[in-house]
């Protein structure tokens, strides 16, 4: 008796139960967030030689942006880039018989509007991680600063210096360099000082 019930239940799954909403959404048009300010933050360009791949990945990117709560506009189809080559069929002379080849690059533009820069980075990282074969990506990211940029830059200076220190410590002259070690000495020598170049007066030297 109970086994029959279970069988009925299993049979009725197809008609009664529904798929999870997120799975259902895959079969529908991608959902989008509304942009409040419409300030562009990131332009992502997808390029591919195949319509299928680029369309699929553009769709994927738009869906990913929805779940990260990023307002998206696009995918906007950009003009195709057609490259053509004409080559002789033969490896030698016979210029009259030639063959044409072409490569069409399809492009799609996806623009993110007023998103948090960190979320945008996360979105881009996610797309890179799940990159689709035969689809290239190029992103222009814009960050907006408040009006007191200079103050903030001054504040962050010590931190930047700390990160640069390992690189700057690498700078210096090689020990086995063939140049004269006392270059300041040479520059201070009388011959150089006596010489008046055309710009020495301008520079006050």
């Amino acid at each position, binding site marked *: 008796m109970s086994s029959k019930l279970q069988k009925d239940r299993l049979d009725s799954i197809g008609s009664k139960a529904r798929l999870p909403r997120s799975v259902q959404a895959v079969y529908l048009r991608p959902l989008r967030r509304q942009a409040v300010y419409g300030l562009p933050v990131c332009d992502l360009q997808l390029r591919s*030689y*195949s319509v299928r791949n680029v369309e699929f990945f553009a769709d994927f990117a738009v869906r990913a942006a929805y779940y990260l709560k990023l307002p998206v506009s696009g995918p906007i189809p950009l003009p195709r880039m057609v*490259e*053509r*080559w004409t*080559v*002789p*069929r*033969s*490896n030698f002379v016979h210029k009259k018989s030639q*063959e*044409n*080849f*072409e*490569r*069409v*690059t399809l492009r799609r533009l996806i623009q993110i509007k007023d998103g948090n820069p960190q979320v945008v980075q996360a979105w881009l990282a996610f797309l890179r991680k799940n990159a689709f074969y*035969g689809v290239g990506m190029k992103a222009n990211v814009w960050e907006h600063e408040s009006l007191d940029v200079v103050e903030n830059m001054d504040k962050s200076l010590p931190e930047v210096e700390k990160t640069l220190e390992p690189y700057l410590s690498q700078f210096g002259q090689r020990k086995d360099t063939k140049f004269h070690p006392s270059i300041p000495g040479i520059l201070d020598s009388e011959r*150089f000082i006596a*010489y008046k*170049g*055309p*710009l*020495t007066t301008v*520079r006050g030297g």
Partner: protein
Amino acid sequence: MSQFRLKKLDLGGFVNTRILRDHTKRRTFEQFEPERQALRYTIRNTSLPQRVRAQAQLQLANMHSNTRSTQIKNRCVEGGTARSVIRAFRLGRYQFRMQALAGELPGVRKASW
């Protein structure tokens, strides 16, 4: 020329004498580029003493011709041909055709319009 050549072959793929020669020229150019640029800067810098600039001119003129970028010539990586090399694929026209027909170049197909 031979003074710039490496003792050991540092090239993979198709190699013949002319490819090797071109490769050596590329390496030499890369190696001497900072020096050339420094000399060029010295020559053009009008705030430097005339004597220094003239010396730099002489030095630049005395450098080996293979340190010039103009000596570099694109060659087909598959056959070494120097003429009609398609830059996008670094292939000569015939190698390009063979590979395109074999479908080895992504996105390239026969065109008709």
